[in-house]
């Protein structure tokens, strides 16, 4: 008698499926995941985990957390990051110390693999959610991530 129970189960499972999609159909107006992009440029907010570009956050006193250890430069498979460093005098100890001059990031070569962010021991760099990266001149894609005149946040190295 499995013949008839097969038919019964077949119809039942098909109706279950149709109920699910039917519910989607009715709620699609509110739940639509499509973003009508250029129209909602002002309100569109990307998800936190979206990988748009690598950024280096600075605090109010223009301080960043990058020690200039160059681990990210080594980790990057594409040579996207170039760290131009310098030696300066540490005010507290008076010793010579490595510090970054320019953190150069070539967005055009970045594959958004995230290795640099994983490897950074001081969490100096992270993902930015900007996605409007098209420019007319590719030189505009080479960025210096540390702000001019910025310095290392105290206490990061401890």
């Amino acid at each position, binding site marked *: 008698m499995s013949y008839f129970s097969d038919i019964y189960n077949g119809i039942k499972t*098909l109706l279950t*499926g*149709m109920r699910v999609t039917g519910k*989607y*159909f009715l709620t699609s107006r509110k*739940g*639509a*995941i499509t973003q*009508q992009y250029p129209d909602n440029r002002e309100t569109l907010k990307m998800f936190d985990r979206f990988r748009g570009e690598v950024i280096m956050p600075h605090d109010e006193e223009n301080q960043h957390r990058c020690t200039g250890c160059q681990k990210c430069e080594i980790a990057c498979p594409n040579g996207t990051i170039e760290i131009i460093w310098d030696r300066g005098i540490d005010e507290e100890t008076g010793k010579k110390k490595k510090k970054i001059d320019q953190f150069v990031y070539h967005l055009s070569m970045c594959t958004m693999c995230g290795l640099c962010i994983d490897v950074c021991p001081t969490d100096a760099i992270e993902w930015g959610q900007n996605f409007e990266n098209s420019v007319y001149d590719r030189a505009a894609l080479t960025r210096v991530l540390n702000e001019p005149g910025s310095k290392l946040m105290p206490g990061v190295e401890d």
Partner: protein
Amino acid sequence: MTTALSITKNIHDWLFSTMPEGVASIVEMTLIALVYLGIFSVAGLFLVLMERRVAAWFQLRIGPNRVGFQGLLQTMADALKLLSKELTGTVKADKFLYNLAPYFVIISSLMALAVIPFTKDFHAFDINIGIFFLIAISSIGVIGILLGGWSSNNKFALIGAMRSGVQTISYELSIGLSLLTMVLITETLQLSEIVEVQKNGWLIVQGHIPAIIAFMIFMIAGTAETNRAPFDMAEAESELGAGFHTEYSGMKFAYFFLAEFINMFIIAAIAATVFFGGWLSPFGITESIPLLGVFWFLAKTLTLVFLMMWFRWTFPRLRVDQLLTLEWKYLLPINLVNIVIMAAVVWLNLTINF
């Protein structure tokens, strides 16, 4: 052509008064053909748009809404684009058959469209074997598909065409038998009379249980006839490229595409006519205005079209063996038993009549 709608009647009289009879009837036939071509293209384009919007809503998307109000002109723009595209072909294709195939497909669906009553007397070709004609014509379309797949000299196209042949030949049987079940009640094959019979209640009510079973079988087999998902093995994008129309481009591709949607409309229209009273309004509320019949007919048909779209965006594609099992082991025996039940119902006068 019986024309009680006053406009068509006036044109008919005017034509026959100004010209000799032979010329007038030829002119009239041409006019009707043009009107039906118009219906064909407008309905096809509208259905494509409807499919895309409905599919989008099922998938929590928005769908085309940029060209024209709410995307109404989107498919028109697509058709214009396809018109302007180059017609490519394969070098070793059988040129004659390759070019002939799309016309087989659209001509068969146009011929099927001709016998469907849109409303009282809006009916190009009211023959007394209407249903039989529909069943016969709907199997000609598959020849176009087979020709297209065979002549384009492409193995994916050939596999797609062969699958389509297998599928259509099998499911043809269920379509025919489920319609025959209903013919047992109506006692006629003529579509206009089938609608007349339903003035005492739609056939799905008159025939109650066997009619509902027949309706379910008809919808399943009809979906298979039109090669739509979950029975879209003839096209199976993930397996065969585009199936039988892999090698077609431009307008010839558009013919296949439009014909597929018109076939869906035809299946839904047959179901609406045979099971849901065609252009009859529910409880006869607008019986005095025959023109509103078009509205009721389209409302019923589009509801059924929506049902088929719902199937398409819910169910996964069947395998070939599952497809044949479904037809030969389930639908066909159920259908045969159903005919006997229906015969008993009609014989014992168990139909529900208002």
